[in-house]
């Protein structure tokens, strides 16, 4: 069961919000509703599910309702209609007491402008959540020091927050959120106020922390690159509506609407698209060592290529066989390819981004073999498809043409 569920959630600001909902359902536009009854539709019929341990990024421009959506999840803003479920708690119907417990035990929030208490030290800020819960002083200090170390601020425990740079202040914000050991982190444009270098650093740090912690993260951003970098899945919002939910690759390769397509067209695809997405994995694209030189030569001739990846009988990758070596083996009447396998060949994992593949093929004409963590061959990426991917989809008929190959390696 998903950890967080949002079902038909609405937030409408204005004098008579309930009246706006039937109007929305009839298809009245946001502008007309504002004109006719003075209500602003901030979040419009949103539904999605988030799994435990997932980083779920909500992406939208300002005014798209993304920050409101985040605040509906822990009811800092009261929803107009719909339901939010966290675990088995219905947040929208929770009593004040249940809501307090939920906020104390399950969720934490990180804010765009940090939301720190300027009259307190770093460790007093970080232990705020525990203080609210009534944890005693020694224990909360201990927990605070631990999470301060986690975010790399060791040595600053007793500094005042005003003495720290923006990036460091946001680390304090992050440490404060982690100190209560929540299950869900709600991050509202957490890195948007930081300058680009620090932002990248914080993104990487969050990815590292997340690899360790496996929290459920809801991350709000207006920056598509940030969304693509951090999100396991991304939801794109426009005018309070969800335009698309999907993985980075889904969104880049299959935009659900013109809006999303326009949005993603300037993205550096080579950083997002992975080897897995452009590799060839047809069974004819490889050869087993015991198949012998005859099979290898036939397949290479048929495909018009000069090298083939070789596996053992369990499909574990062994190396490449080149056409001239295969012909040599055949002359010597060898039955297997074992003697002539070239082991000094480029390989990558299925998750390697295309941009990282380029150096591998830069001064070699060999294809890159895609090898999984288990050592098994998953497929092969040719130079041609890497270069075609980097130059852009409009020059590229290969994207969805897995297996139908005419390229020369």
């Amino acid at each position, binding site marked *: 069961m998903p950890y967080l569920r949002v079902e038909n959630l609405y937030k409408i600001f204005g004098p008579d919000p309930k009246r706006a909902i039937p109007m929305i359902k009839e298809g009245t536009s946001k502008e007309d509703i504002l004109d006719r009854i003075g209500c602003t539709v901030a979040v419009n019929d949103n539904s999605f599910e988030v799994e435990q341990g997932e980083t779920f990024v909500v992406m939208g421009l300002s005014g798209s309702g993304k920050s409101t959506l985040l605040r509906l999840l822990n009811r*800092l803003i009261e929803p107009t209609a719909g339901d939010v479920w966290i675990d088995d708690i219905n947040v929208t119907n929770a009593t004040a007491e249940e809501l307090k417990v939920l906020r*104390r035990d399950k969720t934490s*929030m990180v804010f765009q402008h940090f939301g720190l208490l*300027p*009259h307190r030290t770093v460790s007093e800020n970080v232990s705020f*959540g525990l203080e609210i819960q009534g944890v005693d002083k020694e224990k909360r200090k201990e927990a605070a020091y631990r999470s301060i170390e986690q975010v790399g601020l060791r040595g600053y425990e007793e500094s005042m927050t005003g003495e720290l740079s923006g990036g460091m202040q946001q680390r304090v914000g992050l440490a404060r959120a982690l100190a209560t050991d929540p299950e869900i982190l709600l991050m509202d444009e957490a890195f948007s106020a930081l300058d680009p270098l620090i932002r990248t650093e914080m993104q990487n740090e969050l990815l590292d922390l997340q690899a360790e912690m496996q929290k459920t993260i809801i991350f709000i951003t207006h920056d598509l690159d940030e969304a693509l970098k951090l999100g396991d899945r991304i939801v794109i919002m426009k005018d309070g509506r969800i335009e698309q939910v999907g993985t980075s690759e889904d969104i880049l390769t299959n935009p659900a609407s013109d809006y999303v397509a326009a949005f993603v067209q300037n993205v550096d695809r080579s950083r997002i698209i992975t080897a897995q997405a452009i590799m060839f994995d047809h069974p004819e694209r490889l050869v087993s060592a015991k198949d012998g030189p005859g099979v290898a030569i036939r397949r290479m001739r048929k495909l018009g290529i000069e090298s083939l990846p070789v596996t053992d009988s369990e499909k574990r990758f062994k190396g490449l066989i080149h056409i001239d070596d295969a012909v040599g083996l055949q002359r010597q009447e060898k039955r297997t390819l074992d003697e002539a396998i070239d082991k000094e060949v480029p390989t990558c994992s299925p998750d390697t981004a295309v941009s990282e593949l380029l150096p591998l093929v830069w001064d070699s004409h060999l294809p890159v073999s895609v090898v999984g963590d288990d050592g098994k061959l998953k497929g092969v990426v040719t130079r041609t498809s890497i270069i075609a991917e980097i130059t852009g989809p409009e020059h590229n008929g290969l994207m969805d043409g897995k297996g139908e190959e005419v390229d020369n390696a």
Partner: protein
Amino acid sequence: MPELIDIGYGVEVAVEWLDATLGPVFDFISMVLDALMTVFENALLFSPDIVMIVLLSALAWYIAGRGVGVFSLIGLSLIASMGYWENTMVTLAQVATSAIVALSLGVPIGIWASRNSIVHATVRPVLDFMQTMPAFVYLIPAVLFFQLGAVPGVVATVIFSMPPAVRLTNLGIRQVDEEVVEAARSFGSTDKQLLFKVQLPLATPTILAGVNQTIMLGLSMVVIAAMIGAGGVGGDVYRGITQMNLGLGFEAGIAIVILAIFLDRITQALGASSQKET
């Protein structure tokens, strides 16, 4: 145009009715204020003036720095050597009493107004009224309810000096960064925790500016209250006016100015030091 509406008569009737029905309540208030004032007066006049001057100057030095300390030493000595020490301390006791009452009413009302927009909308015009009504007018009902003397003076002073405490408390709390408030709520703060751990500490510099205003307005009103027999150094000014005695009026005036500067610098320094911490 003939006089069509007689509000003045209505107010008179209302005040008389209040006096008749709430007499015991006013007696009680009168007793409490009188007791408070006596405590302050006794404390200020308990030790010889020299000792008190040194104590007050040391306090000023400690809170507001050397300059204010030195000024206080010279200024307070001048007051004593002109022969106004006792009356000045009586005035100071009245200011302290009315400030304590005004703040203990004004700050909670300010907090309430900051959290409730209906209260805010109700309190605002009342405050405007309280501040713009000529100060002398408060003296009349004060006398009707509390007779002549220091107590009605303090009552009128409380009414006159309370608005800034309410206003600046309300403002200070409303000015606290919305994100900080959201952060506190997102960690599950109760309203009380939010108020005491976040809003009040962050509003302290603004609230202290209100305290300063209340005390300064209080001092000016206590002087006016001499007209209804509140005594103190204001009484000397009033005698100076009625007897056309310029020397007396001027000397008493200087004593008030010195006291005003003393109070102002100390309360401002309190606000500034709390600002530095945040």
